[in-house]
């Protein structure tokens, strides 16, 4: 099956810092999503971005489908940005929309 690799596995930031999270995938995809899982376990949709660039406030994401990677940018980080960030992809060869998740990046933002 498709491999989804996220880096770095852990990230510690001081409040106000910027960071970039990366997601590499091994096969063609129809769909790529970024999620934030908060400390209570809730999975929050950040971006639906099979290709191109999107921005939402302090967060932005870029997916280069031809090169099989996506980047999530966090600017001016806040303590509420702490949690685990997951990248998940839907393979073109799957007709049902199943998502394959990466292992996640654990982000801790310190005051």
């Amino acid at each position, binding site marked *: 099956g498709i491999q989804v690799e996220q880096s770095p596995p852990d990230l510690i930031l001081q409040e106000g810092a910027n960071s970039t999270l990366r997601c590499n995938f091994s096969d063609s995809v*129809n*769909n790529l*999503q970024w*999620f934030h899982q908060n400390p209570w*376990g*809730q*999975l929050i*949709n950040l971006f*639906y971005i099979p290709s191109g660039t999107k921005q939402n406030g302090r967060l932005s994401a870029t997916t280069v489908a031809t090169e099989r990677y996506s980047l999530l940018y966090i600017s001016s980080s806040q303590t509420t940005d702490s949690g685990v960030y*997951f990248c*998940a992809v*839907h393979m073109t060869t*799957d*007709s*049902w*929309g*199943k*998502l*394959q*998740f*990466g*292992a*996640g990046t654990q982000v801790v933002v310190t005051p």
Partner: protein
Amino acid sequence: SAVISQKPSRDICQRGTSLTIQCQVDSQVTMMFWYRQQPGQSLTLIATANQGSEATYESGFVIDKFPISRPNLTFSTLTVSNMSPEDSSIYLCSGDSHSYNEQFFGPGTRLTVL
């Protein structure tokens, strides 16, 4: 976007018992999915539930252990049967209106088995 609710939000159960988790979507969705997240791990797909047909299970998951129902386009249940402490996880359901659309997740059910 779809709004998904799950019940219960958490439970503590004794080994050997079963728990049924309910997932309700506020709009009709074609496919619903059930995922498991073991402590400190990522999400793993258990099965895909299509209305009116038997669920399709991923490798390592079987119907006897995780029976699923999908009686209509807005509701599904997952039962965790004959539980052991290894079943302690967060169970999440998701859905989308089309196989290529954005998926939305319920808040999860946090299960602890003693």
